[in-house]
């Protein structure tokens, strides 16, 4: 699990938003803290949807474990 620290992480939340940021911290309840976090209204990976809107910079954000739908890590750096 330590290998994921300081890697880019993509988290989809229960309300459909996606957050991308640097994985900094977690605990037993999967509360995750992302640094330099950006918020996307829809998944930026899905080219099919004409996802409008620029990302919004949030900075340091904590996502409560119960609101997490899926977690992806950027494996380029692993």
């Amino acid at each position, binding site marked *: 699990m330590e290998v994921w620290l300081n890697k880019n992480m993509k988290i989809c939340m*229960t*309300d459909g938003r996606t957050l991308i940021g640097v994985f900094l911290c977690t605990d*037993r309840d*999967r509360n995750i803290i992302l640094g330099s976090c950006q918020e996307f209204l829809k998944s930026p990976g899905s080219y099919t949807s004409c996802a409008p*809107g620029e990302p919004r910079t*949030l900075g340091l954000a904590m996502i409560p474990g119960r609101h997490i739908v899926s977690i992806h*890590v*950027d494996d*380029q750096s692993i």
Partner: protein
Amino acid sequence: MASYNWVDITTEFMEKSSELKLGELLHDPEFGLFEAMSAIEMMDPKMDAGMLCNQAKKKFLNLKHGIETGFVKIKDLSYPELLGIIDDTYACLVTWLEGHSLAQTVFTNLYLHDPHLIEERSLRAFCISMLKIVDIIRDRINKASVFEEEDFQSLTYGFALATEITDSRASGMLKEVEDDLLRTIKNTRTKQNEDSDPVKEKEHVYATALHSRIKFTKLLFSALIALSKEKCQGIGDANQSLKQMLELLQGMKETWSLGVQNEDQDGRTRDYPTILGFEPLINQRLLPPTFPRYTKIKSREETMWYLNGLINRLKAVCTVTQVSGLHQTMEFFDEFSKPSPCVLSRSILQLLYVPTNRRILGTHSMVDVLKEAIRGFIVPPALMPRSAIANNAPAKEYVDAFLAHCVRPVFNLLQTVGHNRARQRGKWAHLLEELGTLQDEADKVDAYLHSVLVKMEPGKQHLACFGTWVLYHTLQVMLNFTLSGFELELYAVHEYHYVYWYLFEFLYNWLISTLSRAGTLLWEQETAEQCHQKTKSGKKGKKNKRRTRPHSRELTLAQAAQSMCGAYHKAVTGLMLSGKLQQPQFEYDSEEVRYNHRFAPFGCLVTPPPVQYPQFKEMTDLSLYNPPLQPEDLYSTAAKCFQQARIHYEGLTNPNNEVQILIKVCKTNFVVMKLLIGGHRKESKDPPEFDFSSHKIFPIIKIP
């Protein structure tokens, strides 16, 4: 955008994380719980601005999209639509001036995102001018920098503020529209021998309402430009515009309901405009990741009243150019600040008196203004042109250096009064440090000048001239600091006795002696000059009409305030003695701790020396009296003090509104004291009430 190679680790992550112990954190050594504290919590409605955005059902995404989908009309707008848009835009503008962000107020009007797309001429001209008005207001407030985050948000979020269009072009556009409307008004006017035509009459009413709004906008724009002119050259024009605006506003107040209205939501009126062209949540994405502020846009009716107040404040600001002298201007600033004026009028006042070139009213150097002010206050020989010492080179050097050092603190004094009332208190405390240093220098310069002067002109003095002047300002700041605690409701009732004591025994005492000293020196100088003139010009020496002592008004006010504070101190002590006022049982602090905390900022001063708590206890020790004091004795002293204060206030010529209120407060409290002496409700232990509704510092005492 950086390309990623995402790998799904959801299940793996869940498994691994559940292996952690309760309370255990997996984190980088660089990142700890402390850093984690500042993270914003997603999905928490109080912190997560983006969440609100997702809940909102937006009709369209931006102006272009709105036009394409037909939600936003750019031509053939009806009169009610135009009136509604204009009035709601003003509502947004004044809400912005109350400290909300542009994105949540003015720029919820989509037309302002790109006014060039609008085909309707009146709306386009209005929108362009509105952008320019926003720009100029922002510029003024930023330059004056007498705001804090609660007063004003200057961020423009990258919106274009029509800078490509010149000021005169924008005014011209409004003028053209105004003229067109004037023609419509004329054509639709029912002539005497004509039957009334309801359609025509209605158009007439609408056109008149729109005309006054367009004209109002033009005048607001030109007034703001005039007020920004260098060296206060635009004051005349600005006054003219402001006067006309007040007249127009009368009509606008009557017609605010003509425009299209917001649809009610569940029978309640909404907190923000939703009419054609407005989309309250359009800029949600632009907001910073901090806590979203809930923005309630003012209603149209409130807006008209706000504008009315704003214009009156700006008119008052314009009169600053008629005030002569630094001390009088400081008094003007002080009076202006008392009713908590808005950030725009505060900023404009600052910039008129101290523009960005740091020359007073744009023309005089601060050092010259200071010289004149000090001369008018205490006539130091070193500043008198005919005195020998003024032409002594080393002495002159000292004086110039001292004056140069005064410039910054004096600018800071002026700027501090420009801030909002709550912020002023902290800034006063801060200023005392600077004034303490200045006092030190003033005393040294005085001593040096005195040593030079006695050699040149034996018998003359230069003792504590500059020192007294600095002390006068230091005392004013100390008073402002202490008095602001009442206005901001910081003091608890059981603290009143020492706060009023400090004011009575110490601060006002020092102020009175400072003013008397300065007054005496001025008086002597004037008398000497008159004798000089008489001997010089023989019989022709004209009689001086002004034979009142200098600073007499200020002195009387200080004496009156001192009597007031003395009266409250005695009254509160009496009430405590009688058991009507209970000291709380302190668990975590004591009176001494509170006392020291209240007067802590005075600790940095040498003159006047702060009064320590043991000294206060000693001076107010009631056990020294034999026979022991009864509450009635204290009430009777208080009654005398209230009467004394009233006599002082009544002795003032041209009493202003505040003085009249104070006379009333004196009279009422005098009666209350008499009642207490007579044994009114003697047995009752109900605490008295202090009613600050008539005056912010001197309350009316009520015995329930």
